[in-house]
C-alpha cells in the first residue's frame, strides 16, 4: 500500500501469467521449428539486393578505344562538396583535353553523386558496389586507371519524370 496506483480490473485470461507463460512457450517453440522462417542473410555468400540508385564506388567509363571519356573540364572537382577529386588537365597535339591526373579519395568522398550528375561527357559515375576494403589509407585514393578498371554497374540517377524508378 506504499504507492497508490489504480488497478484496472481485467478479465482473468488477460492477467493470468500461467496462461501467458504457456502462450509464450508455444510461440517460441513454433519459431524454433520454423526452418523456413530464418531471416539472416548469409552475407559473404548471399547478398541483399541493392537499389539501382545505389551510390557506391566510383567508376570512369571509357570510349571504344579504351581511353577515359573524361575531357578534364573541371566541373566535378568544382561541384564536389567534399573536395575529394584531384584533376590536372592536359592537352594532346590535336588540342583534345584529357586528364593528366585524376584521383578520387574514397575516404573523403561522401557519395553524393554530384560528380556523375554534373559530368557533361557521362564519364565519371558512382556505382552499385560497396565492398572496398584496403590494408592502407593510401589504397583508398583511386587513380584514373583504377577507376577505369572497375566493372560494376553504375548508378541510375534520379529521374524527375520517373521519381520511383520504374
Amino acid at each position: 500500500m506504499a504507492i497508490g496506483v489504480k488497478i484496472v480490473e481485467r478479465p482473468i485470461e488477460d492477467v493470468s501469467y500461467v496462461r501467458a507463460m504457456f502462450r509464450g512457450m508455444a510461440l517460441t517453440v513454433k519459431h524454433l521449428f520454423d526452418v523456413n522462417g530464418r531471416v539472416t542473410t548469409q552475407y559473404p555468400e548471399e547478398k541483399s539486393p541493392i537499389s539501382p540508385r545505389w551510390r557506391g564506388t566510383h567508376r570512369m567509363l571509357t570510349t571504344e578505344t579504351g581511353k577515359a571519356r573524361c575531357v578534364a573540364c573541371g566541373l566535378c572537382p568544382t561541384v564536389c562538396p567534399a573536395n575529394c577529386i584531384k584533376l590536372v588537365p592536359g592537352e594532346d597535339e590535336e588540342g583534345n583535353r584529357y586528364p593528366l591526373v585524376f584521383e578520387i579519395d574514397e575516404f573523403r568522398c561522401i557519395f553524393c553523386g554530384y560528380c556523375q550528375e554534373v559530368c557533361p561527357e557521362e564519364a565519371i559515375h558512382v556505382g552499385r558496389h560497396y565492398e572496398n576494403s584496403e590494408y592502407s589509407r593510401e589504397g583508398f585514393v583511386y587513380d584514373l586507371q583504377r577507376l577505369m578498371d572497375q566493372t560494376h554497374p553504375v548508378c541510375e540517377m534520379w529521374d524527375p519524370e520517373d521519381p520511383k524508378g520504374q
Partner: protein
Amino acid sequence: MNALHGVNALYEAIDPNNTPVSGGAFLIFTIVKMLIIFTVYMVGVAMLTLAERKISAWIQDRHGPNRVGKGWLQPAADGLKNFMKEETMPAGVNKPLFVLAPILSFIPALTGWCVIPFGAPVATRWGRVDLVLADLPVGFLFILALTSLGVYGIVLAGWSSNNKYALLGGLRSSAQMVSYEISMGMSTIPVLLLAGNVSLNSIINQQAWGGWNVINLTVAFFIFMVAAFAETNRLPFDLPEAESELIAGYHTEYSAMKFSLFFIAEYASMVTASALMATLFFGGWDVPFTAHDNIGPYSGWLSLLSVFIFLGKILFFLFVFMWIRWTLPRFRYDQLMSLGWKFMLPLALIYIVLIAAVLLGLSAAGSRFQQGAWQAAILGSVNVIFVIVLFAILDRGRIISPAYGRMHPKEVERLRRLDRRKRVAVEAVR
C-alpha cells in the same frame, strides 16, 4: 521397498556375479568411470554452449553459429580463444580470493555428479559394477550440501572484484540461492518420504515400482524445477548477472579462462540439476516395463540402454532450461524474493504435511494400501486435486506481489469524484 532389498539379497546369494566388485578391480573400475564421466561431462558442457547458441538463434529466427566446421567446432574455437586471451587482473582486486572464486564455483558444480547413478548395474567377471562413482548412502544430502557451496564462488567473485556491479551481483546471488535452497530442500522431502531413503539408487528403484514421482508428486516437481532454475542462475532468475542492470554481474572483472570457468560452472550445474530432476522425479535410468535392470540378471545391453534413457531425460531438461531462458523475461528483485519466501516455501511446507498425512493415513489403513496400485491411485488422485487447486490460485495472478498495492474502493471513488469536479470546473471556465 524391503521386499526389493530381499530380492536383491536373494539374487546376490544365487549369482556370484551379482556381488559388488571389490579390491583392485573396484579401484580400476572407479578410475575408468571417473575418466569417462569427466570426459563426457566436459565435452557435453562444451557442446551445451553450442546448443544454447543454436537454440537461441532458432527461437529468434536466426541461423546461429555455422562457420567453424559448419558450427560443430564452435566450442573448440571458443575454448581456444579463451586460452589465448589475456588474463586481466584489475588493480583493486583481492588477489587470492579473485583467483579462488572461479575454482570455488567450478568444483562443486562438477563434484555433484559423483553420487548420481547414471545407469543400471553391469555384471562383469569380477562382480557387479554400479554405474555411479560413489554410491553414498546419503547421496541426496551430499548433493544438497554441495550445491549450496556453489554460492561461495559467486559471492567471493563479486566481493573480490572491487567493483560495485560485481558486488551487487554477488549480493543478489547470495540472497537468491540461500532463499531457493530452502524450498529446493523442502520440495524433495515428499520424494524421500515415499522412498524412505536418501540414497539416489533406492529413489530410482522406488519409482521403478511405484511409478514416476512426477505423476504422484507433481507439485514437488514444480517447486524443485523452479528452485533449480534459481539455483543455477538461469533466466528467469539470472539476477546475479542481469546484463541490462549489472553489466555482467559477478564476473564483470573476469576474463579469459577464469571467466570461462564461471561459464562452464553454470552449464555444469545445469547438467547436475537436470540429472537430479530426472533422477528424483522421472525415474532416473530405469528402463520402463522391465525389472531386469533393477534386480538382475544384469546385461550389458540393458545397462547401455539405461544410460541412454538417462541421457535422453537429461537432454530433455537441458532443452527446457534453454527454452525457458529464451521465452521468459527476468523477475524483478522483490518479485524474486516474494516468490521464494511467500509462495514457494509455504507451498513446499504444506505439501510435506499433505503427503505425510496421506502416507500416514495409508499405513493406518493397513498394509495392502502401503504399496502398489492402491498407494499410486490414492496419491495420484490427491495430487490431481491439489494441482487443480494450485493452478486455480496461480491463475488468479498477482501472487508475487507487484510494486503497487490494492486501493480501497472508497479511495478510488473519491479520486474519481475529484477528477469529475475538476473537469466540470474546467468546462465552466471555458
